[in-house]
């Protein structure tokens, strides 16, 4: 696989581009790259949000290019979780409303569970604040909780902790890994220097 913009360029060695890569459930992946290396592109390709690549992307052998919009929407509710780098939160809604909007689609997490996650990440006091008035770090934590309010086989996290301190980074990592492990799912996290500090056997990939 290769993003089309890279086709004419000569790119340095990569574990992903111009090679065959297999991502499996249950593993923890950390994808590291310099800025502009195509991390967000990779996440978007896997999530079906973009198709500007050469090569093929297969889900259990099925070519992603053939998946129709309604099927993508189903995959996004039941198999693929994603926290985009730009978060895509609704600024006029409160933290809780943002999370509940997602949770109402999946009916996944109970209210107490969500409260617990807010508490773990230290934003329970901000639950009724409009997201637009929160700091980016706080918004990232809201986004992380929203991302795990669903069943998933893979969770894509695009620079999820770029604005978090190390302590909050660890808390977030622990929370995500715990949820992924519980579901037997894989974590695919990207970073340009501030990686999600996941404990356990982390497979590092260079982009």
């Amino acid at each position, binding site marked *: 696989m290769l993003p089309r913009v890279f086709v004419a360029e000569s790119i340095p060695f990569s574990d992903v581009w111009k090679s065959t890569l297999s991502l499996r459930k249950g593993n923890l992946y950390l994808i590291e790259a310099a800025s502009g290396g195509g991390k967000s592109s990779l996440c978007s390709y896997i*999530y079906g*949000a*973009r*198709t500007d690549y050469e090569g093929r992307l297969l889900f259990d052998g099925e070519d992603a290019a053939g998946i129709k*919009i*309604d099927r*993508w*929407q*189903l*995959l*996004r*509710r039941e198999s693929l979780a*994603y926290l*985009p780098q730009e978060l*895509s*939160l*609704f600024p*006029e*809604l409160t933290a809780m*409303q943002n999370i*509940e*909007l*997602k949770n*109402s*689609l*999946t009916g996944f997490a109970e209210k107490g569970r969500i409260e617990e996650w807010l508490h773990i990440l230290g934003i329970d006091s901000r639950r009724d604040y409009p997201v637009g008035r929160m700091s980016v770090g706080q918004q990232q934590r809201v986004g992380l909780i929203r991302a795990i309010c*669903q069943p998933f086989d893979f969770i894509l996290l695009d620079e999820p902790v770029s604005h978090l301190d190390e302590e909050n980074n660890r808390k977030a990592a622990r929370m995500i890994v715990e949820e992924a492990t519980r579901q037997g799912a894989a974590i695919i996290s990207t970073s340009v220097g501030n990686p999600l500090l996941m404990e356990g056997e982390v497979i590092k990939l260079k982009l």
Partner: protein
Amino acid sequence: MISRLLRKNTSPARIAGFLLSNFIGLAIIVGGLQFYEDASSLFTSDDSFVKSDFLVVNKRVTSADTWQKGATSFTPEETSELRSQPWVRDVGEFSSADYRVMASVDQGGRGMSTLLFFESIPDGFVDAGGGAWSFREGEETVPLIISKDYLTLYNFGFANSAGLPQMSESIMSGIPLRLTLTSEDGSRRKVMQGRVVGYSNRLNTILVPRSFMEWSNRELGSGKASLPSRLIVDVSSPGDVAIKDYLEAHNLEVAGDKRGSSASYLLKVIVGIVLAVGIVITLLSFFILLLSMSLLMEKNRDKLHSLLMLGCPVKDVAAPYIRIVVVASGVAWLCAVACGEALRASYIRPLEGLGAESGGWWLGPAVGLLLTVVMTVVNVASVRRKVVASFR
């Protein structure tokens, strides 16, 4: 929550603009169609035997023609020239009886008799239905269609002054007429029964089936072929100016009630114009809604995209907009139907006073509903397409 997010940027003014213009357009269509349904009976319902598309044409009688037999007849050349006009669908010739007819009625012991005449036109021009309009050799009864004016003349001109009872159409039809047919030289004679099967406003004659005419002329006529002096013409549009010009140029006149057909034509034209205006306004309102939904969705494009990124089903994302389209269109249609009904209530009494029979009430609302449904379907499809377009 989704609909609260997506309704942001909704412009009540634009929706109101759509509502108002769609309402006006639909109200014009609904009202116009209803009025046409109600008013058209004024011009069309009075003659079931001869359609309004048929014109009866004869030559103008001038004083020079008075003693000149055959001056007002149509030669075969004249007939075929008329037949070749573009607005003519068919031409039928009137043929008249070549013998004398005496009709007598026995009414409560008082006999009454009068000289009559018969004419016939090709059966294709007569729409009596049910096989009533036929005659076969050997039958004793002849069906007749007489001019409604004759009955009026009898009821209000003759019966009053002669102390005779007035008769309705149905009573008249029940009375057997004794017809005595005598050849010109008085040598041959036949007695038959006549029965009135219909009345016409448009034919100033006493009509018998063509088959009877052929048979009786063979039996009683002098054998001289005579040229027709009247023609019945099936025209494609009775109000056409070309018809008037042609008739004037050839010194012909149209018999019977031609006012009715031109008024009915005029009504059609006016209703057509009104409907066209209504349709244009409705179409414009449709584009107002289409554009304001597009604009609204364009403004909310990021939100649409974000919702799809969360995995919202397309139909859930489209639902708030579809609801606006359906509710606004439905309200406009309901208001238009109510307005049409109110309009109808205001004109129906005077119109019925003029003798109109109120037509079906459903045509206007049904056409309005059809338009509304078509426009809504297109709008809904456009909303869905717009949602799908914000997927990537």
